[in-house]
């Protein structure tokens, strides 16, 4: 072998080693989560380093359902999540359309404001917004979590705007000449062309709502209405030593997201890069 080939081999070996070590750091916590969720409390208290349980306690998962209304929490979370996904896709795409494909003066004013609100800390509006929902009698319902998604979030408007701008204007002008009205152009031409970007918005919204903690914490006060995040938190606060059940509950909470991630990885990555780069 020549010197340079040896050097190349060495470099490749070194990079694989570093990558594998880092991957392990990222992955071992997951394996530990799964391992603990299948161990008996007895085995957990031995504190050894084996991830695979001696005896698999699948019943830990069944016991979670006895201890907390897991199914109910899941349905609650799904309801809020699905509503938010619908709201966000409709509203953000409407606004993005206005900012890219309708020629009017206002869009030059609106867009910088949309970007500026991305930097606005949640806490600045938190209390007055809470007071609005209290006055409307909506605290304790899902509405405070759903209504905002129908007004478009800056992040998604921004993402869709980036995507809409890549659509050729000639396409839209041709449709206008053919006599199509604005709504028809939006719903029949632009929306079908934007499926990948809309998918990214849907996935991000799903993920965000599924995981949201502060929103439900602020607005949901009745245990029967809890989402999974709140249910998990309440479970932890009361049974903070039952690690087998806590990890089983966490695993069930995380699994749908991981499955979705594997199917939709492409849209994830595209969406993130679309917003992170072209700033």
């Amino acid at each position: 072998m020549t010197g340079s080939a040896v050097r190349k081999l060495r470099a490749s070996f070194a990079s694989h080693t570093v990558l594998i070590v880092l991957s392990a750091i990222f992955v071992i916590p997951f394996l530990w989560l799964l391992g603990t969720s299948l161990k008996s409390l007895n085995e957990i208290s031995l504190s050894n380093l084996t991830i695979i349980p001696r005896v698999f306690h699948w019943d830990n998962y069944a016991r979670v359902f006895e201890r907390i209304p897991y199914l109910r929490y899941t349905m609650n979370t799904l309801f809020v999540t699905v509503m938010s996904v619908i709201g966000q896709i409709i509203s953000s795409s409407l606004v993005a359309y206005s900012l890219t494909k309708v020629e009017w003066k206002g869009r030059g004013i609106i867009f910088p404001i949309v970007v500026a609100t991305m930097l606005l800390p949640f806490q600045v509006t938190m209390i007055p917004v809470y007071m609005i929902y209290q006055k409307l009698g909506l605290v304790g319902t899902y509405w405070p979590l759903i209504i905002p998604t129908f007004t478009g979030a800056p992040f998604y408007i921004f993402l869709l705007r980036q995507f809409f701008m890549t659509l050729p204007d000639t396409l839209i002008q041709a449709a206008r000449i053919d006599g199509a009205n604005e709504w028809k152009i939006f719903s029949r031409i632009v929306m079908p062309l934007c499926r990948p970007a809309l998918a990214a918005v849907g996935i991000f919204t799903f993920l965000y709502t599924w995981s949201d903690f502060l929103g439900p914490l602020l607005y949901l006060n009745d245990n029967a209405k809890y989402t999974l995040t709140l249910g998990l938190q309440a479970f932890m606060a009361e049974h903070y030593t039952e690690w087998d059940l806590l990890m089983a509950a966490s695993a069930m909470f995380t699994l749908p997201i991981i499955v979705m991630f594997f199917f939709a990885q492409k849209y994830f990555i595209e969406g993130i890069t679309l917003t992170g780069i072209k700033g």
Partner: protein
Amino acid sequence: MRNTLKGLLFASPWLIGFLGLTLYPIVMSFYYGFTSFNAFQPPKFVGLDNYTELFHDDLFWKSMRNTLFITLLGTPLNLAFALLAALLLNLKVRGMAAYRTLFYMPTIVPIAASTLLWIWILNGQYGLLNTLLSKLGLYAPSWLGDPVYTKPSLLIMGVWAVGNVIVIFLAALQDVSAALYEAAEIDGASTLRKFFHITLPGISPIILFQLIMQLINGFQYFSQAYLVIGSSGGLNGAQIGGPENSLLLYAVYLYHNAFYYLKMGKASAMAWLMFICVGVVTWAVFKGAKKLVTYGGE
């Protein structure tokens, strides 16, 4: 004219939301900051009382220091780690798709679940980390019980889930012109020189944007801290901020003032101080970075 109407109609969801759920609340929050307000009776104007109370409140300063600690250490830590990871993931080696997936996976775990998982891993008695440390004969601290280690624990959790930044940096690295590297190679530039003279300038706008987002998120840090505080056997009265209030972050204290003590006025004053801090820091970073950031000619 017709176009204006159309534009307004299509933008109306955002317009309504902006006016009702952003602009009006910003103004009201400013107003509440000068009132005594418990959410049930109408707000009563008290001038600067909330602000003077805050400046004499030890917990307020404590929460400020805790937040600065998390933000000022967490931001560079996350960015440096994400950049390193992105550089690794940009190498031309086999199996890269799998590595990328693994690096990103922690980021999609819901915060409640990932925090719970880390509380378990960092458990002083049975946790994975301490079991490992003591097997290696190293000091095994009480991560979430010892005020010295609680904030570093949060930083560890943060680095683990920094995948979004990694993905963005990776995309930025792939955007840097290959021609520049080729030219540098012909001139015989070393790897380090290429990194400092081509790579870093090439991705500097992205780094700046991520730096600002990290700083802003740092000020708002809430969920993980709140969950860790609540995990140590519930919120037992005096300790609203974990061991010796070491986890009493700004947003946590603000939340407590608003929704536990119902001091909405004081909490609104805190919110506006946060707003001002975020504004000043963002502006200062932009100004300071002007000379350091290279914008490619487009």
